[in-house]
């Protein structure tokens, strides 16, 4: 993920480390930048699915063209 405030790129598990000790236990569905602390929403499941589906389609069509 890329922080929308400071531009730092981080993994979700890095964000989880910063959130340790928070009483919401991830219930906020936000990710926190380990560098500046800015919070942004996690990508919704439907968007993740759409992204994966588009990537898979692009790979399939590239494979078809190659063959």
């Amino acid at each position: 993920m890329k922080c929308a405030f400071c531009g730092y790129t981080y993994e979700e598990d890095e964000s989880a480390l910063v959130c340790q000790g928070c009483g919401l236990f991830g219930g906020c569905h936000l990710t926190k930048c380990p560098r500046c602390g800015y919070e942004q929403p996690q990508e919704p499941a439907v968007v993740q699915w759409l992204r994966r589906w588009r990537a898979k389609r692009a790979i399939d069509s590239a494979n078809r063209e190659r063959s």
Partner: protein
Amino acid sequence: MSLNTFPVERAITYPPPIEEAVEAIEATLQADYTLSRRAIALLLLQNDEEIEGMVRRREGEERFALIAEHIRRAQAHYREPLSMVILAHRQKVAHALAQEVVHYPLKTASGFAEWLGRICMQPLTGIPILLLVLYYGLYQFVGVFGGGTLVDLLENKLFGEYINPFLTHWVKTLIPFAPIQELLVGEYGIFTLGITYAVALILPIVGTFFLMFSILEDSGYFPRLAMLIDRLFKKIGLNGRAVIPMVLGFGCDTMATLVTRILETPRERLIATFLLALAIPCSAQLGVIMALLASHPGALLIWAVTLAAVFLFIGWLTAKVLPGTPATFHMEIPPMRLPILSNVLTKTYARMHWYFREVFPLFILASVVIWLGQMTGLFDLALRVLTPVVHLLGLPDEAASAFLFGFFRRDYGAAGLYHLQEHNVLNGRQLLVSAVTLTLFLPCIAQFLMMKKERGLKTALAISGIIFPFAVTVGAIMNLLLQVLGVRL
């Protein structure tokens, strides 16, 4: 030179006063450490609390006093804190290294984006840009379009003419018990109040707000706002870093209270928590107030000026009362860019989803609590208790219910005011007074619980104990002033 052969310990040679202090501290350290003595010395110069505690324990007070003296002598050479001097020097070295090994074919950031990014940070140009963003982004887009056009379409047309009459008819036909009818489709019913407020009133307002928020966020405007506001925030005991919780507070104050953890000192965290609870309206409340006052631009201007004045005055006062100096602020600024549509839509959707999930059950719960209150007579009793307060603010009896809603959540109370305005119960002055008073209230119960968790019960109670009388006092003074001066809005 390969990385393995690079002389890591002496990769950076700092200016003489720092190097001298490092050497002196290295010579003073006697205990064993996992880190090199040079690293310990540099961390001590940077005021690292954890290392300070460890060194104090292992070296004893006498040797630690000697170390503190070396640090003080080094600091005497600079106006900025040593942490900043060290960081700036490291950045200079890193930049020089990068210049040697990295070659850019062409400048990647466009000249216009760079220029725009620069003028957003300079006070002379940055403040007018901020005012333009607030006027077009907040007032025109969220207030007039979201709170006016979209709410009218959803609340008055869709819910007012189709959904609610249809539901009321079927509930009254199918359920013969008056109390249950009242719970579902009564004046404060789950469908007619809770769901209507959440879907037809709050959702379009929050949606337009989050869309604008995501556009600004994706463009890289916020870090520039932090730089622009840094100097002003220093006057109230904070620094540019506090822009992060403040900006997030315009989304949700409860989450923003949690984010105050990123501030360096307990003093800053306390000031930021207090200001968030007092003077930063959350997204839904801000949107409803924009919509409420959109037809009275003068009232909206007075509301904004009052809130800004309260924010700055209370911040300044708190900073005076609490001893200490604001921490320094420095950050790398990411490039400014044209927002990417897919990013903006994803973030808007994610935020609306998150907000709706939080607000929807609470709005329904509030309807149920009010219904229980009506059944037991407690609701009427609470309204009677609130009536003198409402009169003190120069408001009619009907406004008491909006204020009672405001105790649940500020946005719920603001939605109640919106409802009153639609029925022409309040004039411009009354709208302004009630909007100011309600904005200064504590946002919601969740915010109180978060303050208790982050700052402790005593502080949370003290903040709440100050906020409620303060909000009513400001409202009463404003009402009096507007009446004495004969201001018509």
